């Protein structure tokens, strides 16, 4: 049987069907989760039933993190540092919405999932560099890249959706980011630019299988066929990312999906065609290793250097992050 057939023809067991009924999922999802999580399956499903802790990233382009903490605590919020995110805080309490404080309007923080702060840290953009953000809206990671670059150099932030591009610009304006060019287009078109960028962030469009704690409708909204279609787009986008990265440059490929099909499989297939690319171990102390085989399909062993985050293990949305280097 071909790899794709093995990955995308799932026959759920009676146990998977029973659990799917109990937790409200489509059975094919549970069947796959059973392989990913093994004995931790129930822990994962239970964790997806609970809301995630709120988190913010302080914007050091506008304020020091200590001063922001002081100001928000004076308003009744309680903040706790996220160990792996130098500018990240979990937030509890507060009598007003986090999205309506004076500090929010002044651009002093961005409301951002804890796991979604990791890709920018892993990409590690430097001041003065040229960086591409291929699916940028609404701008959490773009504004974080700009912050890490001290608002110097240049970021090309791309998104295809008109509405989302408006939101992206609004967040850039609010947070005082000026080193960014926004382009509304299909990021695959940028391959024509050639090897231009020092670093590329591809937070790829995905089926959102990692954000079930935030969007329970995802338990039933996507068929396996949708995942297959998505992997084709993801591969094409990663191909484009490779085309525009300078030799010696880095790419972060990430999704908010825990599906191995949308992550390690996509990366493996692109690695197969691109000997100039390799997966690099990120310098972060969080996350589990990438999955190297799934449903009988063996992936490129280098994808074990990817990082996986899960709600039941890390208290975050589900996320997979792979750092690639182009030789």
């Amino acid at each position, binding site marked *: 049987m071909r790899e794709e057939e093995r990955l995308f023809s799932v026959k759920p067991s009676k146990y998977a069907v029973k659990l799917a009924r109990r937790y409200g999922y489509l059975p094919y999802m549970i069947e796959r989760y059973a392989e990913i999580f093994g004995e931790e399956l129930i822990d994962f499903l239970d964790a997806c039933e609970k809301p995630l802790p709120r988190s913010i990233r302080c914007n050091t382009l506008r304020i020091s993190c200590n001063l922001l903490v002081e100001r928000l605590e004076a308003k009744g919020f309680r903040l706790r540092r996220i160990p792996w995110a130098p500018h990240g805080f979990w937030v509890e309490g507060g009598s007003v919405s986090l*999205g*309506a404080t*004076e500090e929010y*309007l*002044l651009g002093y923080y961005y409301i951002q999932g804890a796991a979604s702060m990791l890709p920018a840290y892993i990409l590690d953009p430097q001041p003065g560099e*040229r960086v591409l953000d291929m699916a940028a809206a609404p701008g959490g990671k773009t504004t974080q890249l700009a912050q890490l670059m001290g608002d110097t*150099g*240049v970021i*090309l932030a791309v998104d295809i959706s*008109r509405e989302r*591009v*408006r*939101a992206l*610009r*609004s967040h*850039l*304006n*609010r947070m*005082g980011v*000026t*080193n*960014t*060019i*926004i*382009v*509304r*287009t299909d990021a695959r*078109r*940028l391959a*024509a*630019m*050639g090897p*231009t960028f020092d670093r590329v962030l591809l937070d790829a469009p995905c089926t959102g299988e990692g954000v079930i704690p935030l969007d329970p409708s995802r338990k039933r909204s996507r068929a396996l066929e949708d995942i297959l279609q998505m992997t084709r787009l993801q591969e094409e986008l990663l191909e484009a990312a490779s085309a525009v990265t300078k030799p010696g440059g880095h790419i972060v490929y990430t999704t908010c999906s825990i599906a191995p099909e949308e992550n390690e499989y996509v990366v493996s297939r692109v690695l197969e065609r691109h000997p100039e690319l390799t997966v690099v171990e990120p310098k972060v102390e969080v996350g589990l290793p990438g999955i190297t085989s799934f449903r009988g399909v063996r992936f490129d062993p280098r994808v074990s250097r990817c990082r996986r985050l899960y709600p039941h293990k890390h208290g975050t949305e589900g996320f997979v992050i792979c750092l690639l280097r182009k030789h």
Partner: protein
Amino acid sequence: MPSEKALRFGRADARTAGIVWGSLERWFGQRLVRTLKTRGEIYVSSNRWAEIYLVPPVQVELVELLAASTGLHPYSAGLFLGYLERGGYKPSLPLAHLVARYAERGLVTVSEKAASLFLYGRDLFSGSITGYRGPLERGSLVVVLNPRGEALGYGVVVAAPHEWSPGSVVAVKNVRDLGWYLRRGG
């Protein structure tokens, strides 16, 4: 929905640049204009409105490469300075932050309570104004600051200081405040 090709992003002509620099100098003084001019050149994006950006050379280079290799024009770049409307220039919210830092005039500081109300789109009463920089004349544009000197948005003076009687006069009419980001998405 305008197509990508309908977007045009190019260097502003001398007349447009003159309107922008002239307006900023009139409202806020020379120091702001001098500072901005060191950071880049004025570009105009002609979509539905003529939007004005200050684009540094490092970005101009990439904008040109983008256009040459893909035919695409940016949606925005650099610092959003505002837009042109009926021949006049309207400054942007992100610019207010720099105005607060570099303006020699056109700044009004208000009490904590008035600052909160201003962020909900309310006008400012004379009794809530705790200080101002430069002469305030009827019709002049000002940036409104909270007691910590943080820019909250723009207002227009509708009563000059000699017309103020504490607590009773609307002195500055709200033009645009940071609450815009929530109400309209900026």
